[in-house]
């Protein structure tokens, strides 16, 4: 139930964003998030953007194997 899906903000009107996840367009409220802007990836849960996805951190996770001498 705590499912959250990363989606890209395509447009913002007031406190509502049009987001796209896997080709599907949805609306998401920005009431719970500061500083979201068009082009940002946000985590969407139950119709609300609840966090921005941090691209730098996302890449760190993928780099970890290399650091460990694997990959």
């Amino acid at each position, binding site marked *: *139930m*705590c*499912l*959250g899906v*990363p989606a*890209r903000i395509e447009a913002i009107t007031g406190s509502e964003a049009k987001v796209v*996840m*896997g080709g599907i367009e949805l*609306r998401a*409220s920005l*009431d*719970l*998030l*500061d500083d979201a802007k068009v082009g940002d*990836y946000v*985590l969407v*849960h*139950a*119709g*609300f953007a*609840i*966090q*921005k*996805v*941090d*691209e730098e*951190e*996302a890449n*760190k*996770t*993928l780099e*970890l*194997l290399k650091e*460990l001498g*694997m*990959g």
Partner: protein
Amino acid sequence: MKFISEYRDGKQIREFSELIHKVSKKNICIMEVCGSHTMAIHRFGIKNLLPANIKLISGPGCPVCVTAIDYIDKAVAISKIQDTIITTFGDLIKVPGSYSSLEKEKARGSDIRMVYSILESLDIAKANPDKKIVFLAIGFETTTPATAAGILKAEELKLNNFLVLCSHKIMPPPMEAIIEEGIKVDGFLAPGHVSVISGIEMYRFISEKFHKGVVVAGFEPMDILQSVYMLVQQLENNTPKVEIQYSRVVKPEGNPKARLAVDTVFETTDANWRGLGIIPKSALKIKSAFAQFDAEKVFNIKIEELKGSKGCICGQVLKGLKPPSDCKLFGKVCTPENPTGACMVSSEGACNVFYRFGI
């Protein structure tokens, strides 16, 4: 999909599996607290990628599964009141109460609608001013801010026909209850999306007081294997601590704006968890300043004596004491089409997951 497919790379997943095999020596038991983790672990076959000395057990983090039976009975009772529309997440609709379920009441003519968001409930309230709209609010820290924002929006819009039947719960108290009960857990895969909101300080007592490891984990196969690897490192080196694997969305401080909305609308209360009993300060209730939106107060529902399901071991499954396969009803009397207990209803319930993906 960006931020999903790159964490499902087969080659890297196999390499992580090899790494864990190499460094893991001790027999350890890891509890995945969140129902979404239970589903991901079975869906992606994670258990087959781990050495035999690492045991994964499911915990109490499926909101539908831990919702007390009297909550369903209240929702059923409200659905029978004239000019009332129940709005609910789809997961809840099949959960058996003492005498009925929302699905059965819908078939009998009650107006029960599935929604994806509380915002849809507000739209339904706006479109039906002569009816009372009741949103069934269940879920953990991830979902509570949305409910809080919905109630604040209803206040702003001066909606006087919108109500919430609240059964929101908080994650750390049942984790503590499980440890206090003496259930053997060495480390936790902590719920990623709960932590997006709450941050990680709330888990600190687990490592400091109980010396168990905690890794806040994401939900893709690479995330889960990496989190298991981090826990293995902690436990092999006897350095239990709280770490974040899912750092692309989990910040140590969480989401303060979302928490402010929750603190504005809700306060903590004791709650009955299915299988775990009463846990102090483990749930949220609507503050009296927002009583006009509280279905519990507006309807003042009295329900009949509770009737449990005979033979169902959901309670022990939720505590990680028994796997679903130990239940005599599993797969015979109790199936996703005809569930006896809540753990077979939700797509994240351990019984449902075991049934669909195999044991």
